[in-house]
């Protein structure tokens, strides 16, 4: 059952993408470890970190494409799930610091000592155990998405109204995490990490493993999303996107389907956040800012909504552009982003992959077609 489900996800496009990701994962780590610094093929640790970050963003984009591209749920709050996964990882990394902090407290992280706290809050208790922390990486975003989705989808909140409340959700979390008494480092967030599962987080070797893991999880996430999309459940999701009440009248409980896919997507976003934090070395409330979630939507739109692979390409392309642009013309990046937001849908309404797919009829499975004007039934 599981095997046939997973084999169903390996269509040509996904297969090629996974192969490319595997080559990148192996190639970059190999080049960083064994090629001389002078070699033209050498990837510096800085660049590897950068692309590791892009890969984490790409996983977030795949998660977002799963709900937006296939089920029509335009979440403008997916950054919240990403940040929650990041915080769960950050809390584990904080507990790993131990006595090496500024205040050398074996139990309490520095910011708690600074705030004169005497005891570890219950939220932090088991976070020194790696498996527990990893469970929380999945569980916390998943649980939030499940509860949020259950209420929103059962009450049949759709379209822009849903987008607005997802935006409100991430904004509320942003404000909450800014508060010191929440116990998550307030404004400064969590940083100064030392070790991850006993390995020095700054070491090149650790960073290579982190990079390879991120690319690996991206490939797994893509495979999983593709399997879901190619299953009968995926067809139901597209049916919901195109004609929600028709789907309901042929007997599908739309709210259940939306909740399931929203929760799976949130878990994927959480994993992306957890992979992001050890590579950038910090997690703070700004990750919850609504602009981040909107940027993620732009990545998917640029790459091609409802294509999965496009989400990856869009996330890497836009972020690469951002890095380059903010280096060359820092004050103009926001204008460039704005121009992208306007020009993208105008010139490439189906995104990079959607447009290429149309030209070469590459991977143009019928289910990949995004409706030009999703009309409600009746």
């Amino acid at each position: 059952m599981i095997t046939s489900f997973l084999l169903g996800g390996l269509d040509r496009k996904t297969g090629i993408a996974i192969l490319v990701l595997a080559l990148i994962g192996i190639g970059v780590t190999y080049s960083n470890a064994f090629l001389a610094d002078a070699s033209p093929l050498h990837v510096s640790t800085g660049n590897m970190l950068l692309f590791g970050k892009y890969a984490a963003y790409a996983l977030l984009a795949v998660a977002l494409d799963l709900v937006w591209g296939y089920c029509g749920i335009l979440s403008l709050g997916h950054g919240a799930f990403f940040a929650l996964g990041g915080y769960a990882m950050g809390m584990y990394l904080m507990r790993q610091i131990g006595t090496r902090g500024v205040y050398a407290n074996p139990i309490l992280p520095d910011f708690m000592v600074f705030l004169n706290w005497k005891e570890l809050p219950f939220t932090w208790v088991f976070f020194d155990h790696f498996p527990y922390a990893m469970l929380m990486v999945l569980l916390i975003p998943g649980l939030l998405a499940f509860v949020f989705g259950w209420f929103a989808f059962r009450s049949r909140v759709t379209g822009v109204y849903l987008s607005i409340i997802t935006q409100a959700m991430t904004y509320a979390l942003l404000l909450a995490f800014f508060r010191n008494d929440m116990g998550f480092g307030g404004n400064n967030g969590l940083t100064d990490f030392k070790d991850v599962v006993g390995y020095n987080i700054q070491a090149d070797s650790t960073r290579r493993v982190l990079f390879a893991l991120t690319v690996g999880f991206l490939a797994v996430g893509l495979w999983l999303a593709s399997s879901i999309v190619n299953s009968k459940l995926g067809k139901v999701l597209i049916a919901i996107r195109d004609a929600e009440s028709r789907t309901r009248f042929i007997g599908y409980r739309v709210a259940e389907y939306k909740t399931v896919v929203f929760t799976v997507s949130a878990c994927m976003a959480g994993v992306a956040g957890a992979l992001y934090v050890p590579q950038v070395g910090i997690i703070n409330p700004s990750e919850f800012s609504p602009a981040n979630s909107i940027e993620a939507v732009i990545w998917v739109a640029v790459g091609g909504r409802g294509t999965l692979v496009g989400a990856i390409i869009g996330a890497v392309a836009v972020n690469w552009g951002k890095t380059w642009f903010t280096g060359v013309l820092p004050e103009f990046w926001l204008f460039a982003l704005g121009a992208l937001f306007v020009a993208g849908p105008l010139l490439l309404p189906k995104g990079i992959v959607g447009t290429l797919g149309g030209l070469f009829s590459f991977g143009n499975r019928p289910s990949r077609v995004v409706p030009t004007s999703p009309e409600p039934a009746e």
Partner: protein
Amino acid sequence: MDIAKNSILYLDGVAVSFDGYKALRGLSMVIGPGEMRAIIGPNGAGKTTMMDIITGKTRPDEGEVLFEGSTDLTRLDEAEIAELGIGRKFQKPTVFESHTVRDNLLLALKADRTPFWTLFHRNTKDEDNRIDELLSTIKLSHRAKDLARNLSHGQKQWLEIGMLLAQEPKLLLVDEPVAGMTDAETMETAALLRHIHKSGKSVVVVEHDMAFVRELDVKVTVLHEGSVLSEGSIDHVANDPKVIEVYLGR
């Protein structure tokens, strides 16, 4: 209660209003098992509201709606009612445009509808055969692999009827199936509905097109301002002075 027991669909004194506008006022109607019924009425007579109530989209303010004499439809949601065996075709053809014709039917096919089983579903030989059968019933075998969005208006209507049949319903509610169809398509649709009726299903057809209703040749119910104005054969109804007044009097 005997009337209710021997019926597939039983409406008694159904009333509903929207912001003070009384869409239905004491609508009562009985559809027998295996019966085909045509419902006509001018705009605003409450035809679509009636369908909404039967399929669980709208809750009535008053009145009883029973399926097979015992199941109270006013307490169930759309999915539960669909599972009981009531299929509904919308006025505007509503199919899954970015799916193939075949996938449209596959999605409608009677099967476990929980997300878990749907995720791990694999097509069986039986299902494929059943889809082939349906395709030939609705005369779309040659277009099975095309996207539904590329079908003509009439073909979309047939596909939607096919999707209803795929659910293996006991009762089909069909809202204006021939609106916007050519005459030839209209006649084919009438033949298709008669075929469905002969296979033992109850069918309720809402329609404006009198030629089509004549072609169906079944008992007709005339709705007006949210209740039943007249009921009987097409000739009886057409000669009823009350009906003439409503249709021609203004």
